[in-house]
């Protein structure tokens, strides 16, 4: 008898906990979810709405389904759009080429000082993005420590410039986002089971074969994550073009920033951002569908 009463009490208890279990995830996710809804998702709709408005700052803007904002934006700024995509792509490939061997070396030959090398690799993140870029301006400037010295030794002609060229902008972007590529690649390489590599060697695969047939394929998820994490901010960036570039290196980010904050031409700016977002988000979603978001998040 006593046992049965105990069971009844447990049943009520269990029902209570079950209700709590059903409600608690929503209570936990509620505040943060609401914040993201109001300040991340809903603003995207307002951006879409602003992009279809007409008017100006003094007379006010009105929603008029003005789709011409989009066609005007594309005809006027397709050069900058294209340039952003090209710069972003070149910078992403450059970071991959530069960081893969480094990540490989740290993962497989880092030895006891692995953590130290990793910290060195991530060191740029401890310096403000703006200051990092400014430092490159100093390095690449005509009278700076590198070019100035080389010129005074007559190793470079006096009229040699790097600043204000697309090379400077792409190099700056590649530098600033390199750890975004290097870290996921490193994580993927580090995860590879060493016994698999041993097995390949035991089966008389040459070092080159081990790399191309085993290591490289196993590191591909990290490379994919790195490409996403690098390409998106690289394409949307405008700071590098602003500080290291000139008039011929303007990216779409510069235009959006200018239209929003200086010209107060909100509709055009919103239309441009919307196109950029659509292009990148469609790409991201396809990318995520193919790879799975979890797989990319693991490397963030």
């Amino acid at each position, binding site marked *: 008898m006593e046992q049965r009463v105990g069971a009844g009490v447990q049943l009520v208890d269990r029902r209570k906990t079950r209700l709590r279990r059903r409600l608690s995830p929503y209570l936990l*996710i509620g505040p943060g979810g609401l914040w993201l809804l109001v300040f991340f998702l809903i603003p995207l709709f307002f951006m879409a709405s602003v992009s279809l408005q007409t008017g100006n700052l003094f007379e006010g803007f009105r929603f008029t389904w003005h789709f011409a904002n989009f066609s005007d934006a594309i005809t006027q700024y397709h050069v900058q759009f294209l340039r952003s995509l090209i710069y972003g792509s070149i910078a992403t490939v450059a970071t991959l080429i530069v960081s893969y061997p480094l990540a490989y070396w740290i993962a497989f030959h880092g030895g006891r000082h692995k953590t130290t090398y990793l910290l060195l690799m991530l060191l740029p993140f*401890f310096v403000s993005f703006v200051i990092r870029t400014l430092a490159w301006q100093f390095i690449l400037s005509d009278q700076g420590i590198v070019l*100035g010295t080389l010129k005074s030794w007559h190793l470079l002609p006096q009229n040699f410039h790097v600043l204000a060229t697309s090379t400077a902008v792409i190099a700056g972007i590649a530098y600033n986002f390199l750890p975004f590529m290097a870290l996921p690649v490193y994580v993927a390489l580090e995860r590879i089971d060493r016994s698999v590599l041993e097995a390949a060697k035991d089966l008389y695969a040459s070092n080159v074969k081990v790399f191309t047939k085993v290591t490289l394929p196993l590191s591909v998820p990290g490379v994919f994550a790195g490409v996403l994490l690098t390409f998106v901010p690289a394409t949307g960036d405008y700071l590098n073009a602003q500080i290291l570039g000139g008039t011929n290196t303007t990216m779409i980010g510069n235009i959006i920033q200018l239209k929003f904050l200086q010209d107060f031409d909100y509709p055009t700016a919103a239309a441009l951002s919307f196109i950029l977002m659509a292009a990148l988000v469609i790409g991201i979603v396809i990318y995520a569908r193919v790879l799975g978001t979890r797989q990319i998040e693991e490397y963030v």
Partner: protein
Amino acid sequence: MSVVATTEPEITRVERPPARRPRRRWTRFILPVYSAIVLFYLVLPILVMILYGFNNSGFKRVSFRWLGFTTEWYRKLFAIPDLTNSLKNSLVVATVSTLIATALGTMIALALVRYRFRGKSTSEFVMFLNIAAPEIVLGASLLSLFVTFGVPRGLPTIIIAHVMFNIAFVAITVRARLAGFDREVEEAAQDLGATPWVTFWRVTFPIIFPGILAGGLLAFALSIDDFIITNFVAGATQTFPLWVYGTVKVGIPPQVFVMGTLIFTVGVIIALVNVATQRRKAPRAE
């Protein structure tokens, strides 16, 4: 048994130097040298920043030329009121937004790890989108919202924006640390009569605290450094990165590099302490 039998000859084979080794001797230096060059390339701008903080340019703007060593700018660190003020703003924004984002992000992480519920995969996808979306779009869309409702831009809007981009980062960081959490400890506490509230603060929180701390530090670092989104929602308010950006056209005071050096030093010290404590804890975990 057969496994042991097959592996043993292999070990002896590895110990014997491979026949091809002498031919490849110089090539094994390629990778370390390349890596050293890349690491130097990564560190170079930091060295430049530290160096130019000591450049005796003689006037109030850093010159590209090296004009001798001085510690003057360290002594006159707070001589520019606007710079000091912008740094204060940055610290306020980073502190407040980190506290809010860490609390909200930790709650999301708890919900995602512990419960199965309708809308879970949607929330995960929204967070993924939030991290993957280009910053310029986040800034532009938030500004569109503020413009539409005529919200004046200033410190509150900056804090709103920073919490928005930090929540997902905190949630993912904490979730990763929650994965190995042993729930039986909580059940034990509740069996001993602890209320859920007491269980959380006395049992769960201390265990997941390292994860929360990691998430919070990440949020603080992202917040204090953010330029792109802040530039859109700041109005006339200046944060440290915005102020530095503003000086590019008129000339950069050397104090900017000094401030950068000091922030860098603090960040590296925190990272080293973090690594050291993790190393100390590692043997105990085993």
